[in-house]
């Protein structure tokens, strides 16, 4: 059961994973392949400035799976697209640093950055039907990676596309390589996306809600496939999702995002069993329990704020059951911004009162 790849084991290896989480931040052991440091993304179109990402930091080591969890519209996808450098429309203003193998992609020229997309960092999207070009065959679109990045011939690219389709377990790959995206089922289309993203053996794969658009049974198959492929290649996997079940099954670490910020990070077991942020606790208790028939669900009251009007102080305070006024020297949830700070070994949270949550 022990995984050959560093840090990608199942839930039984929880102890080592906390160490990994710390190791990724220290230069002593294997450096993280991708580091996001104080990333900010603003959209300045007509109307108010939209602060989609407000200081997101995380890092990912080879073979590690990091889940980014949060409600819709909390900036998960935007931060991922900023890493990919595909946020041109509408014009986005990006600051901070995105270091791939130690080099800041935001400081690179466009051409240098482009060459990292594919062999360095790759991405799969939620809806494979719209993410694949309807007028080219799947073999053509997968093979395009080899033609564009390695100058492969058409025939060579097609042969390697068939190999990749085999590898992502598309049945009868050789017969289906010339079919078009609309001729595949949803699960098979997502496999095509995965094959395309993995064509050049990327160091990091960003999966943006890869199973949201799929049937539950197909979801499990696709997640299994991703895990297997990760074990074979040792790539880092950033999994963007709002599905707590998926996170629990496959991720090593999790970063919980709210209103464009990371509010809590840590190992899956720690975060899921003892949340250090009221928002995370709210997410956990909103999961329906299978045998809890007749019980009321516990949703988080209210809706996430508009990214054009983020509340002052802790952005979660209007919905937070623990929110307090600042008196007697206590921090004010509505006025003081809680920093993302170490609250226990290998865990960080952005709440003034994390200790209360952790220790009673």
């Amino acid at each position, binding site marked *: 059961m022990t995984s050959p790849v560093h840090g990608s084991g199942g839930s039984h290896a929880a102890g080592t994973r906390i160490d990994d989480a710390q190791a990724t931040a220290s230069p002593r052991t294997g450096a993280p392949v991708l580091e996001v440091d104080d990333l900010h993304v603003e959209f300045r179109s007509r109307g108010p400035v939209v602060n989609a990402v407000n200081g997101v930091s995380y890092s990912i080591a080879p073979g590690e799976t990091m889940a980014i969890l949060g409600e819709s519209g909390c900036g998960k996808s935007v931060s991922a*697209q900023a890493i*990919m*450098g*595909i946020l*041109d*429309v509408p014009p986005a203003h990006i600051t901070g640093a995105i270091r791939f193998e130690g080099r800041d992609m935001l400081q690179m020229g466009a051409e240098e950055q*482009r*060459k*990292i*997309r*594919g*062999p360095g960092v*790759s*991405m799969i*999207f939620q*809806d494979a039907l*719209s*993410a*694949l*070009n*309807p*007028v080219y*065959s799947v073999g053509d679109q997968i093979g*395009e*990676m080899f033609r*564009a*990045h390695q100058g492969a011939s058409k025939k060579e690219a097609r042969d390697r596309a068939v190999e990749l389709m085999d590898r992502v377990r598309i049945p009868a790959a050789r017969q289906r390589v010339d079919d*078009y995206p*609309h001729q595949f089922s949803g699960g098979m289309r997502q496999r095509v*996306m995965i094959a*395309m993203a993995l064509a050049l053996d990327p160091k990091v794969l960003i999966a943006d809600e890869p199973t949201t658009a799929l049937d539950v049974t197909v979801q499990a198959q696709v997640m299994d496939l991703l895990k297997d492929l990760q074990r074979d290649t040792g790539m880092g996997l950033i999994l963007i999702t709002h599905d707590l079940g998926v996170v629990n099954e496959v991720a090593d670490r999790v970063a919980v995002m709210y209103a464009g910020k990371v509010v809590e990070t840590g190992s899956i077991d720690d975060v899921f069993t003892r949340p250090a942020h009221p928002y995370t606790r709210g997410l956990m208790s909103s999961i329906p329990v299978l045998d809890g028939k007749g019980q009321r669900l516990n949703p988080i009251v209210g809706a996430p704020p508009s990214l054009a009007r983020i509340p002052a102080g802790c952005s979660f305070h209007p919905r937070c059951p623990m929110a307090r006024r600042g008196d007697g020297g206590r921090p004010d949830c509505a006025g003081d911004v809680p920093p993302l700070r170490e609250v226990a070994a290998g865990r960080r949270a952005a709440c003034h009162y994390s200790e209360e949550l952790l220790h009673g």
Partner: protein
Amino acid sequence: MGRYVARRLLLTIPVLIGASFLIFAMVYALPGDPIRALAGDRPLPASVQAALRAEYNLDDPLLVQYGKYVLGLVQGDFGTDFSGRPVLQTISERLPVTATLTGVAIVFEIIIGIAAGVLAGLRRGSFFDNLVLVTTTLLVSIPVLVLGFVSQYVLGVRLGVVPVAGINEGLYSYLLPGLILAAISLAYVARLTRTSLADSLRADYVRTARAKGLDRRTVVVRHTLRNSLIPVVTFIGADIGSLLGGAIITESVFNIPGLGRAVFESIQRQEGSVVVGVITLLVFFFIFFNLVVDVLYAVLDPRIRYE
């Protein structure tokens, strides 16, 4: 696909019969007597008039006249005009002229329309984009007649850079008429290309193409242009038929002896045989090019399949 095309071609037969009958009935319903008009100020002897009427079946009821016309048609006889000239001869002389004019117009429509649309769509909000928007609005709102006469006067008469009228200078004499004929369609093509391109640029698959690390050229040409040109190709194909018909005005302004002018003159003379023959032919072209477009559509977009 073969069966689909065959079925569509068979369907053109009832359409052609219906169209030709409608036009026939309209010519029949025109007020006035074509034979008397033919004679002008000096009335023809009654016997001559009667002979002419008999020759052109003008005394028969509408349905009988039409029946006799169709009977001739299926034998390859398009009839003759009042001066005894076979209609088929008129068509074979004038069709190449109209076809050339339409061809020149289509080339202008494709080259200028698509180029302007693509450049504007790629640089939305730029000076060029606004220029295209204003120019196309002007082109669409000015009547062809005005556009034709003004450009003929300025470019032909005053500046003398193009022939004023006629077709005596080969392809060169078709340049201005072709451009005028294309003007409105060209504006539509530019607008359509611009919008369609802007839509495609926002598509998820273009985002994917960029995430794949493709260079900008590949992203735009391969993953954006092809998809955004599908509706444009459809429009241009369907437009060929309309341009053939629309040539009537342009041919009159520039004095070009094409099918359009033949129809125009024949309507004035109430020469049913010419009017019905030519217009039925135009209807056929219209249906034919629409079929070509539908077939082309399936070639361009693999999602479209005709069983």
